[in-house]
């Protein structure tokens, strides 16, 4: 049940922020290489694995998209040796203070390669140890009156690396990346907590699917895509969908799990299987097929409603090129966009298995059978 766990823990321990996904992409590529026939990177960094189907050419193809980029922070400037920061993606600022972080410093003093500081990506910078730091907020007495109560706005938060101001100025440049450094932790009940489970838990589910497909023949080609830059606007998915032109696209992304304070109608239970999403972002026939399959196989799932933007790569894949029939599968997760996101391992396994079963059943005439209205 938990054999995917070591891979997932490795994966969420890597930085790979939006636009700088190399460290995550490398780990995923190593894992996928034996599971696919071809592997490539998209123009904007998405990792694209192809498993060829058994059907005769030209074969239809299904793209399974799971984004691999992580949210994080970026240095906007330095004041008295403390780093000022902005968000990369929708970091939940309310719980940011106290979070341990890694600063991928690229200044001349950091690389030792002279004034050019030729290293810019977290991927390459990862070769050198990042600077450990912590997100700090000033004492309430030091904040302006309006900022003393409640969560503190990002403009008042800093990163303290412990170094003296001159050293910080030598090492750190505007635009340097900051990732969460919170280590993953297994909790009871086969759950895992850590940062970047959004959406690397879904990458793990897609990996489970690829493993299942090793022993399951499938007619269609399968594009397993770990997309880039989802957290800043589904940019990698848009490019990959345009380039690969899959016949259909299935996007797997995390969704809000039930937890403290969560409403009944906008959240899904944790540990009760994936969600199968319905809404304008979804092709109704794909939704119906997936739901009927889950019922038949007795794989638990819940239905999720998204009345407009699904908040996933699906929004971009649906309107890529001439349009691509899209389905979104949700993986329930608590405390989204914090360093302590939480998922149930069982949900990952079930999602992977459901995907593999769906793919294995895609016949050569599947597209002729699906219609909008019935």
């Amino acid at each position, binding site marked *: 049940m938990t054999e995917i766990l070591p891979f997932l823990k490795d994966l969420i321990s890597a930085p790979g922020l939006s636009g700088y996904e190399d460290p995550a992409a490398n780990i995923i590529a190593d894992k996928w290489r034996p599971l696919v026939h071809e592997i490539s990177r998209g123009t904007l960094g998405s990792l694209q694995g192809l498993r060829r189907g058994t059907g005769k050419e030209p074969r239809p193809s299904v793209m399974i998209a799971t984004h691999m980029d992580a949210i994080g922070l970026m*240095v906007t400037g330095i004041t008295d040796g403390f780093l000022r920061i902005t968000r990369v993606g929708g970091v939940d600022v309310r719980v940011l203070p106290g979070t341990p972080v890694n600063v991928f410093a690229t200044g001349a003093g950091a690389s030792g390669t002279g004034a050019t500081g030729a290293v810019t990506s977290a991927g390459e910078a990862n070769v050198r140890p990042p600077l450990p730091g912590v997100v700090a907020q000033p004492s309430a007495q030091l904040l302006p009156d309006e900022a003393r109560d409640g969560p503190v706005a990002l403009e008042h938060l800093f990163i303290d690396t412990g170094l003296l101001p001159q050293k910080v100025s030598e090492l750190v440049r505007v635009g340097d990346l900051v990732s969460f450094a919170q280590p993953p932790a297994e909790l009871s009940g086969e759950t895992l907590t850590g940062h970047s489970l959004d959406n690397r838990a879904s990458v793990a589910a897609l990996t489970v699917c690829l493993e299942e497909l090793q022993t399951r023949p499938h007619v269609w080609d399968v594009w397993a895509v770990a997309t880039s830059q989802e957290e800043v606007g589904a940019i990698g998915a848009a490019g990959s969908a345009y380039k690969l032109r899959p016949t259909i696209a299935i996007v797997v992304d995390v969704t809000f799990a039930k937890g403290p304070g969560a409403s009944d109608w906008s959240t899904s239970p944790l540990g009760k299987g994936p969600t199968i999403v319905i809404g304008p972002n979804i092709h109704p026939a794909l939704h119906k097929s997936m739901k009927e399959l889950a019922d038949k196989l007795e794989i638990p799932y819940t239905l999720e409603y998204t009345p407009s933007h699904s908040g996933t790569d699906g929004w971009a894949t649906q309107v890529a090129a001439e349009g691509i029939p899209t389905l979104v599968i949700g993986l329930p997760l608590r405390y989204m966009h914090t360093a302590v996101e939480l998922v149930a391992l069982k949900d990952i396994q079930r999602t992977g298995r459901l995907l593999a079963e769906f793919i294995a059943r895609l016949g050569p005439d599947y597209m002729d059978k699906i219609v909008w209205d019935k």
Partner: protein
Amino acid sequence: MKQLIQKLTETFSPSGFESAIREVIKQEVQPLADEVRVDALGNLIVRKGAKAKNGKRIMLAAHMDEIGLMVSHIDENGFIRFSNIGGIRTGGLLSGRVQFTNGTQGLIGVERDLFAAKSPTFSQYYIDVGATSAKNCPVKIGDVAAFKRPFLELGQRLVAKSMDDRIGCAVLIEALRALKTSPHELYFVFTTQEEVGPRGAATSAFGIDPEIGLAVDVTLTGDTPKSKYMAISLGKGPAVKVKDTGMLSDQHIVEWMCSTAEKKRIPYQREVLDGGSTDAMAIQMTRSGVLAGCLSVPCRYVHTPSEMVDYEDVQNSVKLLVALISAPLNL
């Protein structure tokens, strides 16, 4: 170059109504270009050179539209109510002067509760063009206007309306003039409708299908009294965008720009902008994705009738752009 900047900034062309500025720029670029065309959205597309063996197809984009106002209603006494085209800030409106594309001029007034605790909203402002009735009002619903404010030189600093982004247009024109040789197939694109979402850049990029896209646009600064924090100042060189609200520049493009500036000893600043985006955002998302970045000219008071840039920054922007597009590159 100052004369060119004056000519560009004193032309009135809000988003969607770029005819006047397109004509002005066309006159400048025609003798310098290998091919000039206008696409369906009105983008002025200027090609220079062909792709050599080690060359790339590169799109440079500066938007030629500006923020403006559109007539929404004319009352019986000839007062005009208006809507915004792009991100107009209400703070700078009162008693400002505007000019319509048909040449009509007017001033902006506001309803009387000016002294209320809250600052007035858009709908409380009106334009007075000297008309006394709806009948003799020289403009009609749907007509557009832009701020009227003469170009001004303040020592090293230049001030004008629509520096955003006519200064980018000026940088592109001067770079085209200064360019000697290039291994690249270069497209200098003067885009439309950036201020209403980067729309002209989206279609021109689709048409050109570039391998690399670079916008030239203004960015904000953090160097005025009690301004929002930002590590960008006037006079410290052009800015290399790492991130803004709409996009992350491609990391290889950022490195290419920074290392070129260092090699040529051109001062530059690394930019992380909270608030706004550029044509580069649309170019990046074109087709299967384009490696994109942005060369920014630091500018104070953006989206007011008096936008200020530093002349040395502008000249250094031209130098940096020429250096970038003259040499072969491997990304």
